[in-house]
């Protein structure tokens, strides 16, 4: 017990040293706001719905930020992990595989139904593992490539997985069961169930909110720790100069594959959440545009910046699910145009991407290193960094 206490004190001191008090106060404040936020809005309002989706986007954005932002591997097929995560939920949390009777820690209702029904937390872990494996598979052919070629290979994988999702209806895996339900969608998926709390339902969105908020906190914590870890620094080193990094002894294959795997795992977790939240896993959701949508979050937030990824995810989540459909949708009609704003949402994101890249390429909350790269005062700022070797991420 005393050992544990000593360990805790050591950690506490380390945190004290690294994080100034106002930062900790700010984080505490955000945490409190995050927890009490659902009480400020009606439990099934459109705003709550948009908030939940935006938080799930932020999780994906954090995952993609590891691949694109930290490791500098442009992944244009991130939708593949959304698809695999959602299908993990569809496969292991519904009656889709109706010949199987496997139940683990699910609600009393679900445990009497045919199919595979696992507890949501188990599915979440499973989705992360499946996506990590898929991330490694996708990463392997890109190891020798760089830049644009990586983008194209990942894009191709994303499209192949989306095609398999659509055509999976005609892929029979025995017993009259198919691989996916194609555009019909796997419906009637289980809602999350926790012993003592019960099953979630869509009339009360608050538990969903806390669930995705908790997932976001976990992912955020892992991200922050990864960034400053040996692995995180290896990613940044590879991104900045592959030859130099490899010469310094950074294992190229392992480091790159870990970036793909970890980034994919977060995408899968968010995908599984979306699967249960939307109550249907439909192949039509997994389009190339979604990969770009997630990429736009990372770019707009600031490539490689963790808080930027969260802000970008939340911002685009709200724009996409609240501002465009609920607030601004009627504007073109009022101006005399015959279309709805939701029809051109991807055009709007494309426009945001172009504007952002041309005017503020470092993003809303830029990572320190990238800000230095992209602004004029490179030389003096570099000199300052060199003089202060203790700065996080810089001198270690």
């Amino acid at each position, binding site marked *: 017990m005393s050992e544990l206490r000593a360990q805790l004190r050591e950690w506490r001191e380390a945190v004290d040293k690294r994080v100034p008090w106002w930062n900790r106060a700010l984080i505490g404040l955000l945490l409190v706001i995050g927890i009490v936020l659902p009480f400020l809005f009606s439990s099934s309002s459109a705003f709550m719905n948009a908030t939940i989706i935006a938080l799930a986007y932020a999780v994906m954005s954090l995952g993609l930020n590891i691949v694109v932002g930290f490791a500098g591997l442009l992944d244009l097929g991130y939708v593949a992990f959304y698809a695999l995560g959602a299908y993990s939920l569809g496969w292991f949390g519904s009656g889709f595989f109706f010949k199987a009777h496997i139940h683990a820690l699910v609600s009393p209702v679900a445990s009497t139904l045919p199919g595979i029904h696992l507890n949501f937390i188990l599915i979440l872990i499973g989705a992360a593992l499946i996506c990590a494996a898929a991330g490694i598979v996708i990463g392997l052919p890109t190891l*020798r490539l760089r830049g644009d070629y990586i*983008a194209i290979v990942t894009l*191709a994988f994303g499209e192949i997985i989306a095609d398999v999702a659509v055509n999976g209806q005609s892929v029979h895996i025995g017993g009259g069961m198919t691989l996916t339900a194609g555009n019909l969608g796997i419906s009637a998926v289980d809602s999350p169930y926790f012993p003592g709390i019960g099953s979630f339902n869509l009339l009360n969105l608050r538990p969903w909110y806390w669930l995705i908020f908790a997932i976001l906190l976990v992912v955020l914590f892992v991200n922050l720790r990864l960034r400053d870890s040996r692995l995180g620094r290896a990613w940044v080193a590879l991104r900045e100069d592959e030859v130099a990094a490899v010469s310094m002894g950074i294992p190229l294959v392992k480091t790159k594959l870990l970036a793909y795997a970890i980034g994919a795992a977060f995408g899968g977790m968010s995908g599984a959440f979306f699967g249960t939240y939307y109550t249907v896993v439909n192949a039509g959701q997994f389009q190339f545009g979604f990969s770009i949508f997630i990429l736009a979050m990372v*770019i707009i937030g600031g490539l490689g910046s963790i808080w930027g990824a969260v802000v970008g995810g939340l911002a685009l989540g709200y724009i996409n699910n609240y501002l465009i459909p609920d607030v601004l949708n009627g504007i073109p009609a009022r101006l005399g145009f015959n279309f709805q704003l939701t029809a051109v949402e991807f*055009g709007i994101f*494309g426009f945001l991407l*172009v504007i952002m*890249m041309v005017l503020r390429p470092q993003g809303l909350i830029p990572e320190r290193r990238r800000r230095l790269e992209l602004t004029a005062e490179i030389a003096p700022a570099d000199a300052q960094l060199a003089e202060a070797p203790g700065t996080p991420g810089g001198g270690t």
Partner: protein
Amino acid sequence: METTTISPTPSPPAVAARSLAAVRRHAGRWGLIAALAALPVYYGISDLTHGYQAGVVAGHALIHHDLSKLGFNFAEGLSNGAIWALIAIGYTLVYGIIELINFAHGDVFMIGSFTAVGLWATLGLGLTTSALGLVGGLLVTLIIAMMVTGSLNVLIERVAYRPLRNAPKLASLITAVGFSFILQNVGLLWRGGSPQSVPDLIHSQQTVFTIGGVPILRGYILAFAVMIPLVFALTWFINTTRAGRAMRATAQDPEAARLMGINVNSTISLTFLLGGMLAGAAGLVYALYETNVWYFQGFKAGLIAFTAAVMGGIGNVRGAVLGGLIIGVIQSLSDSRLGPQWTEAVVFGYLIAIMVLRPRGLLGEETREAG
């Protein structure tokens, strides 16, 4: 450009993925050729031994044992491939000169189709137009469509790529994707969200003559009649004119070209103009051939054409044409044997196979990117 970028692209490390390097050394070019030949050879043998259903006569399936179905696949694939080749040249030219995958290129092609179809209506071209009027009208359409897409491409370069030329390469790739989406939505607002059929002006499905049981349709002839002269004109331009020499010099080393007095900016604009013009021509041919247009055609065509450019060896015009024709055949084989819903996955499977086996493509030089 390498000297001016803030994060220069280093050459690939020799230690990377030693096992994959070994695979490539042994497989390399022949592996790729074998992979490309696999589909036609397999289906050719299967047609000869098991036969295929050529039709139904009096309630019985008519089974043929010959290669004419394969020949039909080839004819259709090659003519489709002629369209992909025109688009692929645009990718290859731009990549050769500024090392950017111009993601918006496929959508420029789509805009070309839309412009052409819009012009038909303006010029009053319809199914009743006389042959002479049709030829004249289509020529005018071709020229205007090429001018529109060419200038559009130049405009995109000016707005989205030139300001970022000294930024990390990721930046311009992202604006390219952004512009692709903008153009798609322009198309969506222009002609709605579903494929629209357009008048079959040239009766593209009419058989002109038959070779060995393979019908050659009017659409096939049109595709080649547009593609071959344009490719020859382009090669002539690049190889013999002063501007073409400037293009080649800039592609080789922009910095040195600038020191030799070449205006690099206008040379790059010229490259985009040429690529865009070919995409416009492809757009017109596509509309005449497929007799339908929709806003998403450019995205799919862009990915297919890019695969073609990579397969032929990016930066290489002959390679782009070769790659386009090969991809066309693969597509047609997959359409008729596996079903059109799997075609995209098959093409992308090939793309990944190329990347693993021979990233520099069939005719390409070793590049900094693909090692």
